[in-house]
């Protein structure tokens, strides 16, 4: 097999792996056709870089290998590109994603380019180094790439809010002008008409963290913003720009660590809300593990949580 065929095949398989990830995560993906094209092209470039690495090294062309370092620099730009793009859109979102969610999405896009690169690196490595007949080598390379993609797809998917908290539908009520979700204070609503509308159309839920790690993670403001953003995206929201009363919110009860969530969806369906919250991704930047520290475990034991 000529180096040219090796590189071409590896690039193709790497690009395909990028394509798989474009399809898997459609929910996080703003599905405009241009976005598909942009990320597929960048994925193809990444795949090409991964594909040439081993043939270049084997032919003692070390200059070509240093291009890999340049590539990593280039891919960091992808994170920037996604981040600025989404940040510019924040202003026109009725319920913003919040910086933590945006960072998570941007990182995912950068990481997926490395996947394309690794897959093509693996493919070209197998094609170049394994001594066997052409067809056997190709099948082995395809098989191994598929394994890699499936493995990464599972391990990169990450946890969901449902893994960290138990979600139960909750009662909305007013004490005076203060809105409560069960016993958790949400906000002060001064207008009687707004209060009436909230009681009629609003939905509440309470998130009970499963352990000390979940408690600290759910307390993160960025994570809570991500929850209300996804709720507004999935269930819709009865709100316009000049109606701050109907902004969905997630507020903390610091005695118990519970989070009270309030939203005004287009269709009032408590079960749909529960499922939507459970599927919100747990943000990398929100995740904390106090249980990994001795002092964290000690504090948790003493307070009984």
């Amino acid at each position: 097999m000529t180096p040219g065929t090796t590189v071409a095949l590896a690039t193709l398989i790497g690009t395909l792996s990028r394509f798989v990830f474009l399809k898997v995560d459609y929910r996080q993906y703003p599905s405009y056709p241009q976005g598909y094209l942009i990320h597929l092209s960048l994925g193809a470039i990444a795949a090409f870089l991964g594909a040439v690495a081993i043939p270049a090294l084997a032919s003692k062309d070390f200059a070509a290998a240093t291009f890999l370092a340049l590539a990593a620099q280039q891919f960091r730009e992808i994170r920037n590109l996604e981040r600025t793009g989404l940040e510019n859109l924040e202003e026109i979102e009725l319920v913003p994603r919040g910086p933590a969610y945006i960072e998570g999405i941007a990182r995912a896009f950068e990481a997926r380019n490395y996947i394309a690169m690794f897959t093509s690196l693996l493919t070209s490595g197998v094609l170049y180094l394994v001594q066997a007949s052409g067809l056997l080598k190709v099948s082995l390379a395809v098989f191994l790439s598929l394994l890699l993609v499936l493995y990464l797809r599972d391990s990169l998917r990450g946890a969901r809010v449902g893994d960290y908290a138990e979600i139960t539908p909750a009662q909305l009520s007013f004490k005076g002008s203060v809105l409560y979700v069960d016993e958790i204070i949400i906000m002060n609503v001064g207008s009687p008409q707004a209060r009436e509308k909230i009681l009629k159309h609003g939905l509440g839920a309470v998130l009970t963290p499963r352990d000390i790690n979940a408690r600290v993670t759910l307390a993160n403001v960025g994570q809570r913003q991500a929850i209300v953003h996804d709720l507004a995206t999935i269930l819709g929201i009865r709100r316009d720009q000049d109606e701050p009363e109907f902004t969905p919110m997630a507020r903390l009860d610091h005695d118990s660590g519970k989070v009270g969530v309030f939203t005004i969806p287009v269709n009032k369906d408590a079960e749909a809300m529960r499922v939507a919250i459970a599927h919100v991704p747990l943000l990398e930047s929100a995740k904390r593990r106090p249980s990994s520290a001795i002092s964290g475990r000690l504090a948790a034991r003493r307070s009984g949580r």
Partner: protein
Amino acid sequence: MNGGDQIVAAVVTKETREKLAGDILVLLAQDDAELQTIATSLARITNSMIHELPTGVILLVRH
């Protein structure tokens, strides 16, 4: 809620008028019904939210 919150105005009736002091725009309403209409329309105009203090004073706050 990031420190950028700003009180736009207060709306009061005669009874709650004396519970306010300081440099703030105050709108006086005849009764509770007028209080609500003033508050609602001003909130729409200024893109702010109506809050009610336990003393009965209505505050418009831009969040």
